[in-house]
């Protein structure tokens, strides 16, 4: 077995494709959102099904039904929408109410526009007014082609998104970061080139490439997929109900919440329990155990990896070889930190800068002892965050 290539830039051959509309979806609901529909309610495509209770203009976007149908179930993390049952004799068939295009989108600006965008389903929590805006045009991970595909096939949508963003947050300068050697550009952006080898494609390192500073203030970064979502809303003036995901070597527009199995069927990719299936790319994707899971709006890929292709992660002891130290873009010692986490020494992990971890997964990728290094680091970060939360709660009670 050869070492997998980490270069993310590819020559895009196919064009952006659609999939048949599914009859039922399972729309993932982020924890912050509150469902606003009831069981058995008839919903139309684009109707709000979960709201963000915040009053602010910046937050996670509302969720909308991506098909016409009936709410079948409301789970803690998802809302199931199925087909409308056949109406009984003599009764009028229920008509799902689809929302009208939002005409005021053209007249709003600033915070009002951000609020409206959030209501239309685009997340605005990473935006701030009047900062430098960087658009990460690099494919996020090897095998995930969304960014370059969208730059190639959705120029108009991206342009519309950019114009919308200019009204919404009035960024100082807009920079587009693309892979070195690629002739890609976007109207109104300064183009900056950067390495396309993972992990150079993750947001903090792209910011470094674009601005020359590590963790700079006054800089926002969004991906091409994010920009595309803004562009879709600007073009249709309708709520966002689709995700753009890479499956295999093609990119598809998929209704939010479409089940992974139906996507794989539509694409014609073989699947079975001899595969690991993840939402996201091969480096940071989250594996799923059940193909009934719906595709989230911000998903960039469905990745399939044969179960036995790569050495399995095991709780082996660290052998101090230092491979992780050399590949770590955050310049910390993942091996040592993973041992602190392994033995519950979280404060030591904090003093050794576990907080600088960028969560790229390179440490686990190279570990010859097959340790779940990043998993340990995430554990330490999670534990420390929970501790800090508890401390601040106690202080508030005093």
């Amino acid at each position, binding site marked *: 077995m050869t070492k997998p290539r980490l270069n993310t830039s590819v020559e895009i051959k196919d064009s952006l494709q659609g999939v048949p509309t599914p009859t039922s979806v399972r729309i993932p609901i982020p924890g912050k959102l509150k469902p606003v529909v009831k069981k058995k309610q008839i919903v139309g495509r684009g109707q709000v099904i979960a709201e963000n209770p915040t009053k602010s203009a910046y937050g996670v976007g509302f969720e909308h039904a991506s098909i016409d149908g009936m709410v079948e179930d409301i789970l803690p993390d998802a809302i199931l929408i199925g087909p409308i049952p056949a109406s009984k004799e003599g009764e009028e068939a229920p008509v799902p109410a689809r929302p009208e295009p939002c005409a005021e989108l053209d007249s709003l600006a600033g915070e009002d526009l951000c609020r409206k965008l959030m209501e239309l389903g685009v997340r605005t929590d990473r935006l701030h007014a009047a900062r430098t805006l960087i658009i990460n045009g690099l494919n996020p991970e090897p095998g995930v082609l969304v960014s370059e595909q969208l730059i190639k096939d959705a120029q108009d949508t991206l342009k519309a998104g950019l114009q919308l963003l200019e009204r919404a947050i009035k960024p100082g300068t807009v920079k587009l970061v693309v892979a070195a050697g690629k002739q890609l550009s976007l109207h109104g952006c300064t183009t900056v080139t950067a390495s396309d080898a993972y992990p150079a494609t993750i947001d903090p390192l792209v910011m470094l490439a674009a601005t020359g500073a590590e963790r700079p203030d006054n800089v926002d970064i969004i991906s091409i997929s994010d920009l595309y979502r803004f562009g879709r809303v600007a073009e249709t003036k309708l709520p966002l109900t689709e995700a753009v995901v890479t499956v295999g070597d093609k990119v598809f527009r998929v209704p939010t919440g479409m089940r992974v199995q139906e996507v794989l069927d539509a694409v014609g990719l073989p699947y079975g*329990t001899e595969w690991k299936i993840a939402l996201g790319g091969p480096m940071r994707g*989250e594996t799923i155990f059940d193909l009934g899971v719906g595709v989230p709006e911000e998903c960039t890929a469905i990745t399939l990896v044969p179960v036995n292709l*790569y050495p399995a992660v095991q709780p082996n002891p660290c052998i101090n070889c230092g491979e992780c130290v050399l590949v770590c*873009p955050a310049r*910390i010692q993942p091996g040592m930190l993973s041992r602190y986490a392994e033995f519950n020494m979280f404060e030591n992990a904090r003093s050794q800068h576990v907080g600088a971890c960028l969560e790229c997964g390179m440490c686990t990728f190279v570990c010859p002892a097959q340790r*779940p290094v990043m998993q340990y680091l995430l554990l330490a970060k999670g534990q420390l965050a929970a501790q800090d939360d508890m401390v601040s709660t106690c202080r508030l009670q005093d």
Partner: protein
Amino acid sequence: MASQDITKNIFTVTSAPLWHCGKTLQSNMIQTLLALLPVAVMAGYKYGFAAVSVMAWAALTAVITEALVQKLMGQEPSADDFSALVDGLLFAFLLPATAPAWMVVVGSAAMVILGRMVFGGYGGSPLCAPAVGWGILAISWPDFMDLNGMLLNWDLIEPLSELKYFGLDAIADVTPVSLLLGEYLGDLGASQAGLVLVAGLYLMARGIVRWFIPVSFLAGVLVTGLVYNLIDPQAYASPVFHLLSGSTLLAAFFLMPYPSSSPAWRLPMLLFGFFGGAMVIIIRTYGIYPDGACFAVLLANLCTPLFDLIQPKPFGGR
């Protein structure tokens, strides 16, 4: 309804990333064994059955000792990662070919116990295990470890002992090429300088040994050797002689980069290697042992925690 068509199969779940570079401890050790094989064959060809028996005893004892101690400690047996086998073989490469079997067994067991298992196993040791084993034997039974005395059967010279006891004139006809070809006596495996170099370069090309430590170690040997050579060319041997004689090359490619006992950052690795290389020449010049490479490795190992204090700032740090 479509949801009934969804398969009920449960899929394998793992933590991210799903990919792995494919290099595991086991595959690295197999590659190392592959690289060491020509050296072992050459040693067998040159010293005959005696060398084969030393290598066999050392490797066998290392693997069995590790398994026994792991049983005692309640650890999972890890003989299948071949790290004990590699350590045993490296240890054998440092011995004279005629070393008595009992000494090889004692040394190999001590190497595994004191060099590896007391620290929790492979990867936990602050010292390079084969060098520890060599050090124990060199101090405990200096007569059996004396290459000149042990290899009297062969009508050749041992360049480092000649240099130590008879001065520069005794090694006047020793050429670098003959050293590379292993035409003189020396440690069983380490004296096959050319093949050790090939093995090291092979591992570096495969990305198993990183270049930082071997290159800086050899640079340390060359620079320090050159300094002495320039001070008095009549009294001190040339740096190339030091580079190719004794166990310098084995130390450069196999003992210095020993994973747990070497630093991890780039600059510390370079300093560590250079320091070790300089120590080789200093020990050979002033020490009582003809070959100081293993002691230099152990000394550098002891300084590893100091080198490791040189750390870059974390990403976005103050």
